[in-house]
């Protein structure tokens, strides 16, 4: 299975900018399907970005985050070639993780 996580991490000397796109339905639990039944909530709750074994960014998400969520942040201390670990877990306990090299 292909990874659900797409990450681009670019270093500009001092800081590293990270952009992540995750494939996930992010169902809020308020939307009805064609038959009129509520689609149960299914959304990512926590995304963790780690560099050098330490978290550099933690996202706690509710169902109001858009489908196929996107997030951007930057941190200090990353170098080109370093690995960035990204992992997420949703409200059903499903999870995925991936690593990206800082460019």
């Amino acid at each position, binding site marked *: 299975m292909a990874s659900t996580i797409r990450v681009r991490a670019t270093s500009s000397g001092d800081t590293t900018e990270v952009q992540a796109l995750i494939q996930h339905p992010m169902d809020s639990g308020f*939307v009805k399907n064609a038959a009129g039944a509520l689609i149960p909530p299914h959304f990512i709750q926590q995304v963790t970005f780690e560099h050098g074994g330490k978290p550099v960014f933690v996202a*706690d998400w*509710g*169902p*109001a*985050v858009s489908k196929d969520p996107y997030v951007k*942040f930057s*941190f200090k201390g990353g170098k080109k070639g370093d690995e960035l670990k990204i992992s997420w877990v949703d409200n059903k306990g499903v999870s995925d993780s991936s690593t990206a090299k800082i460019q």
Partner: protein
Amino acid sequence: MTYSIPGSVDETRRLILKGAAVVALAGLGGIRFGLAPALAAANDKYPEAAFKVKGTDDAIKALYGKTAEKSDKVKMDAPEIAENGAVVPIAVTTTLADVTSISILVAENPNALAASYTIPAGTMPSVANRLKMAKTSNVIAIVEAGGKLYSASKEVKVTVGGCGG
């Protein structure tokens, strides 16, 4: 889910992560075996209750246990009019020092709290994401800096709601 692991948590976690990376590289199916609890152990617990509160004030209290004061040092970049409420790009940045977290709330959504980000030392106090909005509403950005809360808000008009119906 368990959030505690006996023994040397760090070691265990590193090993699990290493294993996970190898599996992912080898392309052997999804990783769905207990990785999440191991990871969560290293971080703050997911603030489940705060995401289920209705109004903004109550959500801020549930999340931080205090109230926020308005600050012009909190800058929010959000559209005046969002054509599609399902995808509203919102960015928050601040010039405040010692920022530990940034949260974004949508007042008129069924549950106000949309996203909350932990900013460890060394990470820039700036975040961009995309949120769903049920209808035209105030969007509130909360920045926690030096143990205090600062906020900024902006009304975003929504022409097509993003929460179905």
